[in-house]
Protein backbone atom coordinates (compact mmCIF):
# COMPACT_ATOMS: atom_id res chain seq x y z
CA UNK A 1 0.00 0.00 0.00
CA UNK A 2 2.84 2.34 0.95
CA UNK A 3 4.57 1.51 -2.33
CA UNK A 4 1.42 2.28 -4.27
CA UNK A 5 1.12 5.67 -2.68
CA UNK A 6 4.62 6.54 -3.71
CA UNK A 7 3.90 5.52 -7.29
CA UNK A 8 0.90 7.81 -7.33
CA UNK A 9 3.00 10.69 -5.99
CA UNK A 10 5.66 9.98 -8.62
CA UNK A 11 3.07 9.98 -11.39
CA UNK A 12 1.57 13.24 -10.15
CA UNK A 13 5.02 14.84 -9.96
CA UNK A 14 5.81 13.71 -13.49
CA UNK A 15 2.50 15.13 -14.73
CA UNK A 16 3.12 18.45 -12.98
CA UNK A 17 6.60 18.58 -14.49
CA UNK A 18 5.12 17.85 -17.90
CA UNK A 19 2.54 20.59 -17.51
CA UNK A 20 5.19 23.14 -16.54
CA UNK A 21 7.44 22.03 -19.42
CA UNK A 22 4.68 22.45 -22.01
CA UNK A 23 3.46 25.67 -20.43
CA UNK A 24 6.89 27.31 -20.49
CA UNK A 25 7.81 25.76 -23.84
CA UNK A 26 4.77 27.20 -25.59
CA UNK A 27 4.53 30.56 -23.82
CA UNK A 28 1.47 29.47 -21.89
CA UNK A 29 -0.01 27.27 -24.66
CA UNK A 30 -0.11 30.29 -26.97
CA UNK A 31 2.75 29.54 -29.35
CA UNK A 32 3.40 26.04 -30.65
CA UNK A 33 5.49 27.11 -33.60
CA UNK A 34 8.49 29.39 -33.65
CA UNK A 35 6.58 31.68 -36.00
CA UNK A 36 3.75 32.35 -33.54
CA UNK A 37 6.32 32.75 -30.75
CA UNK A 38 8.17 35.27 -32.90
CA UNK A 39 5.05 37.37 -33.50
CA UNK A 40 4.21 37.33 -29.81
CA UNK A 41 7.74 38.33 -28.89
CA UNK A 42 7.92 41.11 -31.50
CA UNK A 43 4.73 42.72 -30.24
CA UNK A 44 6.19 42.75 -26.75
CA UNK A 45 9.67 43.95 -27.73
CA UNK A 46 8.61 46.55 -30.30
CA UNK A 47 12.00 46.77 -32.00
CA UNK A 48 12.94 50.01 -33.74
CA UNK A 49 13.41 49.98 -37.49
CA UNK A 50 17.18 50.31 -37.93
CA UNK A 51 18.31 53.32 -39.90
CA UNK A 52 19.08 51.65 -43.21
CA UNK A 53 19.47 53.15 -46.68
CA UNK A 54 16.65 52.16 -49.02
CA UNK A 55 16.73 52.35 -52.79
CA UNK A 56 13.41 52.45 -54.61
CA UNK A 57 12.08 51.82 -58.10
CA UNK A 58 12.56 55.49 -58.99
CA UNK A 59 16.27 55.18 -58.18
CA UNK A 60 15.91 57.38 -55.13
CA UNK A 61 18.07 56.60 -52.12
CA UNK A 62 16.97 57.63 -48.66
CA UNK A 63 17.14 56.43 -45.09
CA UNK A 64 14.16 55.11 -43.23
CA UNK A 65 13.81 58.39 -41.33
CA UNK A 66 12.26 59.72 -44.58
CA UNK A 67 9.00 58.33 -43.22
CA UNK A 68 9.21 59.92 -39.79
CA UNK A 69 5.82 61.08 -38.56
CA UNK A 70 3.96 58.52 -40.68
CA UNK A 71 2.93 54.98 -40.13
CA UNK A 72 4.64 52.53 -42.45
CA UNK A 73 3.01 49.28 -43.54
CA UNK A 74 5.67 46.98 -44.87
CA UNK A 75 6.31 43.53 -46.28
CA UNK A 76 9.47 41.59 -47.10
CA UNK A 77 9.67 40.03 -50.54
CA UNK A 78 11.85 39.06 -53.48
CA UNK A 79 10.52 39.59 -56.97
CA UNK A 80 11.58 36.22 -58.39
CA UNK A 81 9.31 34.57 -55.84
CA UNK A 82 6.46 32.61 -57.35
CA UNK A 83 4.39 31.43 -54.43
CA UNK A 84 4.00 33.45 -51.25
CA UNK A 85 5.17 36.91 -52.33
CA UNK A 86 2.62 37.54 -55.11
CA UNK A 87 -0.12 36.51 -52.71
CA UNK A 88 1.38 38.69 -50.00
CA UNK A 89 1.59 41.70 -52.32
CA UNK A 90 -1.86 41.12 -53.77
CA UNK A 91 -3.25 41.13 -50.24
CA UNK A 92 -1.23 44.22 -49.39
CA UNK A 93 -2.81 45.93 -52.40
CA UNK A 94 -6.24 44.97 -51.03
CA UNK A 95 -5.40 46.53 -47.67
CA UNK A 96 -4.10 49.62 -49.47
CA UNK A 97 -7.46 49.98 -51.23
CA UNK A 98 -9.33 49.80 -47.94
CA UNK A 99 -7.45 52.72 -46.41
CA UNK A 100 -9.27 56.09 -46.90
CA UNK A 101 -7.62 58.23 -49.60
CA UNK A 102 -6.94 61.15 -47.30
CA UNK A 103 -4.76 58.97 -45.11
CA UNK A 104 -2.69 57.50 -47.91
CA UNK A 105 0.64 59.24 -48.18
CA UNK A 106 -0.24 61.66 -45.38
CA UNK A 107 -0.58 59.36 -42.42
CA UNK A 108 0.62 56.08 -43.84
CA UNK A 109 3.05 54.86 -46.45
CA UNK A 110 3.25 51.35 -47.89
CA UNK A 111 6.63 49.77 -48.41
CA UNK A 112 7.75 46.48 -49.93
CA UNK A 113 11.33 45.62 -49.11
CA UNK A 114 13.27 43.10 -51.17
CA UNK A 115 15.74 40.88 -49.34
CA UNK A 116 17.36 39.80 -52.59
CA UNK A 117 19.26 42.98 -53.64
CA UNK A 118 21.50 41.02 -56.02
CA UNK A 119 18.76 40.08 -58.43
CA UNK A 120 16.21 42.75 -57.57
CA UNK A 121 17.73 45.72 -59.37
CA UNK A 122 15.86 48.94 -60.15
CA UNK A 123 14.45 47.37 -63.31
CA UNK A 124 12.99 44.43 -61.41
CA UNK A 125 11.49 46.72 -58.76
CA UNK A 126 9.93 48.87 -61.45
CA UNK A 127 8.39 45.86 -63.08
CA UNK A 128 7.04 44.73 -59.73
CA UNK A 129 5.50 48.18 -59.16
CA UNK A 130 3.65 48.02 -62.47
CA UNK A 131 2.58 44.49 -61.77
CA UNK A 132 0.83 45.49 -58.56
CA UNK A 133 -0.23 48.92 -59.79
CA UNK A 134 1.66 50.72 -57.08
CA UNK A 135 2.13 54.47 -57.60
CA UNK A 136 5.81 54.29 -56.52
CA UNK A 137 5.13 57.12 -54.10
CA UNK A 138 2.66 56.09 -51.42
CA UNK A 139 3.50 52.44 -52.06
CA UNK A 140 7.15 52.01 -52.85
CA UNK A 141 9.07 48.98 -53.97
CA UNK A 142 12.50 49.13 -52.41
CA UNK A 143 15.64 47.18 -51.77
CA UNK A 144 18.46 47.58 -49.27
CA UNK A 145 21.73 47.58 -51.21
CA UNK A 146 23.95 47.18 -48.15
CA UNK A 147 23.93 43.49 -47.19
CA UNK A 148 24.94 44.09 -43.58
CA UNK A 149 22.19 46.66 -43.09
CA UNK A 150 19.70 44.27 -44.67
CA UNK A 151 20.72 41.46 -42.34
CA UNK A 152 20.42 43.73 -39.31
CA UNK A 153 16.90 44.66 -40.31
CA UNK A 154 15.87 41.05 -40.96
CA UNK A 155 17.34 40.02 -37.61
CA UNK A 156 15.64 42.72 -35.59
CA UNK A 157 12.27 42.08 -37.26
CA UNK A 158 12.70 38.32 -36.96
CA UNK A 159 12.48 37.61 -40.68
CA UNK A 160 14.18 34.31 -41.45
CA UNK A 161 15.24 33.80 -45.05
CA UNK A 162 16.64 30.43 -46.13
CA UNK A 163 17.99 30.17 -49.68
CA UNK A 164 17.21 26.84 -51.33
CA UNK A 165 19.35 25.33 -54.06
CA UNK A 166 17.25 26.51 -56.99
CA UNK A 167 17.69 30.26 -56.45
CA UNK A 168 14.55 30.66 -54.41
CA UNK A 169 14.07 31.48 -50.76
CA UNK A 170 11.93 30.06 -48.03
CA UNK A 171 10.84 32.85 -45.74
CA UNK A 172 8.19 33.76 -43.25
CA UNK A 173 5.66 36.40 -44.28
CA UNK A 174 3.49 38.93 -42.53
CA UNK A 175 2.34 42.55 -42.66
CA UNK A 176 4.46 44.74 -40.42
CA UNK A 177 3.22 48.10 -39.13
CA UNK A 178 5.81 50.60 -37.94
CA UNK A 179 4.66 53.65 -35.99
CA UNK A 180 5.66 57.32 -36.67
CA UNK A 181 8.61 56.95 -34.27
CA UNK A 182 9.95 53.98 -36.21
CA UNK A 183 8.87 51.34 -33.71
CA UNK A 184 7.27 48.09 -34.82
CA UNK A 185 3.75 48.02 -33.38
CA UNK A 186 1.90 45.24 -35.17
CA UNK A 187 2.69 42.02 -36.97
CA UNK A 188 -0.39 40.90 -38.85
CA UNK A 189 -1.46 37.72 -40.58
CA UNK A 190 -1.18 38.53 -44.29
CA UNK A 191 -4.01 36.18 -45.20
CA UNK A 192 -6.56 38.15 -43.17
CA UNK A 193 -6.96 41.25 -45.32
CA UNK A 194 -10.09 42.74 -43.76
CA UNK A 195 -8.82 42.23 -40.26
CA UNK A 196 -5.54 43.94 -41.08
CA UNK A 197 -7.24 46.87 -42.84
CA UNK A 198 -9.62 47.34 -39.92
CA UNK A 199 -6.75 47.36 -37.46
CA UNK A 200 -4.71 49.86 -39.50
CA UNK A 201 -7.71 52.15 -39.99
CA UNK A 202 -8.46 52.13 -36.28
CA UNK A 203 -4.87 53.07 -35.51
CA UNK A 204 -4.90 55.85 -38.13
CA UNK A 205 -8.24 57.23 -36.89
CA UNK A 206 -6.76 57.41 -33.44
CA UNK A 207 -3.67 59.19 -34.74
CA UNK A 208 -5.69 61.80 -36.64
CA UNK A 209 -8.02 62.27 -33.68
CA UNK A 210 -5.17 63.18 -31.37
Amino acid at each position, binding site marked *: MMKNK*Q*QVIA*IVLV*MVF*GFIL*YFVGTDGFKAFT*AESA*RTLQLEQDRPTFPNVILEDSKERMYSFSEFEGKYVMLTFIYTACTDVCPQLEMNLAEVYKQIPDNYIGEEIVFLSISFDPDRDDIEALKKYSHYFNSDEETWRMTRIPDKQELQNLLDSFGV*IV*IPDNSGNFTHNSAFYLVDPEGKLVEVMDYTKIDEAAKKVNAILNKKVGE
Partner: protein
Amino acid sequence: MKQAIYGLIFYIFLMLPPVISISESIMVLHMHMQMPLLVIVGMLFTPYLKEKFPGFFEKWNTNGVPGTLLFFIILIYWMMVPRAMDDAISTLSVEIFKFISLPFLAGVPLRDSWKKLSKRGQSTALISFAIVYGIVSLLYIASPNQLCNNYIVAEQKALGWTSLFTAIGILIYYVQSLFIEEELEE
Protein backbone atom coordinates in the same frame (compact mmCIF):
# COMPACT_ATOMS: atom_id res chain seq x y z
CA MET B 1 30.54 0.71 -15.56
CA LYS B 2 31.85 -0.10 -19.02
CA GLN B 3 28.55 0.97 -20.56
CA ALA B 4 28.63 4.26 -18.68
CA ILE B 5 32.10 5.03 -20.07
CA TYR B 6 30.97 4.28 -23.61
CA GLY B 7 27.93 6.43 -22.93
CA LEU B 8 30.09 9.29 -21.71
CA ILE B 9 32.39 9.12 -24.75
CA PHE B 10 29.35 9.08 -27.00
CA TYR B 11 27.76 11.96 -25.06
CA ILE B 12 30.86 14.13 -25.42
CA PHE B 13 31.10 13.24 -29.11
CA LEU B 14 27.50 14.41 -29.67
CA MET B 15 28.30 17.66 -27.89
CA LEU B 16 31.19 18.60 -30.18
CA PRO B 17 30.23 21.78 -32.03
CA PRO B 18 30.85 20.41 -35.55
CA VAL B 19 28.82 17.30 -34.72
CA ILE B 20 26.01 19.49 -33.39
CA SER B 21 26.01 21.68 -36.46
CA ILE B 22 25.88 18.71 -38.84
CA SER B 23 23.22 16.85 -36.89
CA GLU B 24 21.02 19.93 -36.68
CA SER B 25 21.49 21.10 -40.26
CA ILE B 26 18.96 18.60 -41.61
CA MET B 27 15.60 18.19 -39.96
CA VAL B 28 15.50 14.41 -40.24
CA LEU B 29 18.98 14.08 -38.72
CA HIS B 30 17.98 16.40 -35.91
CA MET B 31 14.89 14.48 -34.88
CA HIS B 32 15.60 10.94 -36.00
CA MET B 33 19.34 10.72 -35.37
CA GLN B 34 20.57 13.21 -32.79
CA MET B 35 17.61 12.91 -30.46
CA PRO B 36 17.44 9.07 -30.38
CA LEU B 37 21.22 8.93 -29.91
CA LEU B 38 20.87 11.16 -26.87
CA VAL B 39 18.21 8.82 -25.51
CA ILE B 40 20.60 5.88 -26.09
CA VAL B 41 23.33 7.76 -24.20
CA GLY B 42 20.94 7.92 -21.25
CA MET B 43 20.26 4.19 -21.56
CA LEU B 44 23.97 3.47 -21.41
CA PHE B 45 24.22 5.48 -18.20
CA THR B 46 21.31 3.67 -16.55
CA PRO B 47 23.08 0.62 -14.98
CA TYR B 48 25.71 2.87 -13.43
CA LEU B 49 23.12 5.26 -12.02
CA LYS B 50 21.05 2.40 -10.65
CA GLU B 51 24.13 1.06 -8.91
CA LYS B 52 24.83 4.48 -7.41
CA PHE B 53 21.29 5.29 -6.37
CA PRO B 54 19.49 1.95 -6.00
CA GLY B 55 16.96 3.34 -3.52
CA PHE B 56 15.81 6.15 -5.74
CA PHE B 57 14.75 3.99 -8.67
CA GLU B 58 13.29 1.31 -6.42
CA LYS B 59 11.30 3.83 -4.45
CA TRP B 60 10.00 6.17 -7.10
CA ASN B 61 9.74 3.91 -10.11
CA THR B 62 8.70 0.60 -8.56
CA ASN B 63 6.34 -0.52 -11.30
CA GLY B 64 7.85 1.45 -14.17
CA VAL B 65 4.76 3.55 -14.85
CA PRO B 66 6.09 6.96 -13.68
CA GLY B 67 9.31 6.43 -15.65
CA THR B 68 7.48 5.48 -18.83
CA LEU B 69 5.20 8.46 -18.44
CA LEU B 70 8.18 10.78 -18.04
CA PHE B 71 9.76 9.26 -21.15
CA PHE B 72 6.62 9.98 -23.18
CA ILE B 73 6.30 13.53 -21.89
CA ILE B 74 9.84 14.34 -23.00
CA LEU B 75 9.43 12.47 -26.29
CA ILE B 76 6.18 14.23 -27.20
CA TYR B 77 7.61 17.61 -26.27
CA TRP B 78 10.53 17.26 -28.66
CA MET B 79 8.56 15.66 -31.46
CA MET B 80 5.20 17.37 -31.46
CA VAL B 81 5.89 20.95 -30.46
CA PRO B 82 7.35 22.25 -33.72
CA ARG B 83 9.06 25.20 -32.10
CA ALA B 84 11.05 22.98 -29.73
CA MET B 85 13.58 22.26 -32.48
CA ASP B 86 13.70 25.89 -33.58
CA ASP B 87 14.20 27.01 -30.00
CA ALA B 88 16.98 24.47 -29.51
CA ILE B 89 18.81 25.93 -32.50
CA SER B 90 18.28 29.57 -31.58
CA THR B 91 18.40 29.51 -27.77
CA LEU B 92 21.31 28.08 -25.82
CA SER B 93 19.29 27.27 -22.70
CA VAL B 94 16.83 25.16 -24.70
CA GLU B 95 19.73 23.39 -26.41
CA ILE B 96 21.21 22.56 -23.00
CA PHE B 97 17.81 21.36 -21.86
CA LYS B 98 17.70 19.05 -24.88
CA PHE B 99 21.08 17.54 -24.03
CA ILE B 100 19.97 16.95 -20.44
CA SER B 101 16.32 15.97 -20.87
CA LEU B 102 16.72 13.37 -23.62
CA PRO B 103 19.37 11.24 -21.89
CA PHE B 104 18.37 11.70 -18.26
CA LEU B 105 14.61 12.26 -18.40
CA ALA B 106 13.88 9.97 -21.35
CA GLY B 107 16.71 7.42 -21.80
CA VAL B 108 17.34 6.62 -18.15
CA PRO B 109 13.69 6.24 -17.08
CA LEU B 110 12.87 4.19 -20.18
CA ARG B 111 15.56 1.59 -19.58
CA ASP B 112 14.83 1.50 -15.87
CA SER B 113 11.10 1.11 -16.49
CA TRP B 114 11.01 -1.35 -19.35
CA LYS B 115 11.82 -4.54 -17.43
CA LYS B 116 9.54 -3.46 -14.59
CA LEU B 117 6.53 -3.04 -16.84
CA SER B 118 4.08 -5.88 -17.17
CA LYS B 119 3.58 -7.52 -20.55
CA ARG B 120 0.48 -5.42 -20.98
CA GLY B 121 2.32 -2.28 -19.93
CA GLN B 122 4.99 -2.95 -22.53
CA SER B 123 2.39 -3.49 -25.24
CA THR B 124 0.62 -0.27 -24.30
CA ALA B 125 3.91 1.62 -24.37
CA LEU B 126 4.87 0.18 -27.77
CA ILE B 127 1.51 1.00 -29.30
CA SER B 128 1.55 4.52 -27.82
CA PHE B 129 5.03 4.92 -29.24
CA ALA B 130 3.76 3.97 -32.71
CA ILE B 131 0.79 6.32 -32.31
CA VAL B 132 3.09 9.23 -31.38
CA TYR B 133 5.15 8.62 -34.51
CA GLY B 134 1.97 8.27 -36.55
CA ILE B 135 0.62 11.60 -35.35
CA VAL B 136 3.97 13.27 -35.94
CA SER B 137 4.03 11.96 -39.49
CA LEU B 138 0.51 13.26 -40.12
CA LEU B 139 1.40 16.61 -38.62
CA TYR B 140 4.45 17.11 -40.80
CA ILE B 141 3.15 15.54 -44.02
CA ALA B 142 -0.26 17.19 -43.98
CA SER B 143 0.71 20.67 -42.88
CA PRO B 144 0.71 23.03 -45.85
CA ASN B 145 2.60 25.62 -43.80
CA GLN B 146 6.20 25.70 -42.82
CA LEU B 147 6.15 24.68 -39.17
CA CYS B 148 9.78 25.27 -38.32
CA ASN B 149 11.45 28.49 -39.29
CA ASN B 150 14.81 26.78 -39.63
CA TYR B 151 13.68 24.04 -41.99
CA ILE B 152 11.93 24.28 -45.36
CA VAL B 153 8.70 22.50 -46.19
CA ALA B 154 10.45 19.77 -48.24
CA GLU B 155 12.46 18.75 -45.18
CA GLN B 156 9.32 18.82 -43.11
CA LYS B 157 7.68 16.37 -45.52
CA ALA B 158 10.75 14.13 -45.43
CA LEU B 159 10.52 14.12 -41.66
CA GLY B 160 6.85 13.18 -41.86
CA TRP B 161 7.54 10.21 -44.12
CA THR B 162 10.46 8.92 -42.04
CA SER B 163 8.23 9.18 -38.99
CA LEU B 164 5.60 7.11 -40.75
CA PHE B 165 8.17 4.42 -41.55
CA THR B 166 9.28 4.44 -37.93
CA ALA B 167 5.68 4.05 -36.79
CA ILE B 168 5.21 1.11 -39.15
CA GLY B 169 8.50 -0.40 -37.96
CA ILE B 170 7.38 -0.24 -34.35
CA LEU B 171 4.04 -1.82 -35.21
CA ILE B 172 5.75 -4.68 -37.06
CA TYR B 173 7.98 -5.22 -34.04
CA TYR B 174 4.92 -5.29 -31.82
CA VAL B 175 3.06 -7.77 -34.00
CA GLN B 176 6.02 -10.14 -34.21
CA SER B 177 6.44 -9.94 -30.43
CA LEU B 178 2.94 -11.39 -30.09
CA PHE B 179 3.96 -14.52 -31.98
CA ILE B 180 7.59 -14.99 -31.07
CA GLU B 181 8.44 -15.77 -27.48
CA GLU B 182 11.36 -13.72 -26.26
CA GLU B 183 12.55 -16.53 -23.99
CA LEU B 184 13.49 -18.58 -27.04
CA GLU B 185 16.15 -16.08 -28.01
CA GLU B 186 17.69 -15.75 -24.61
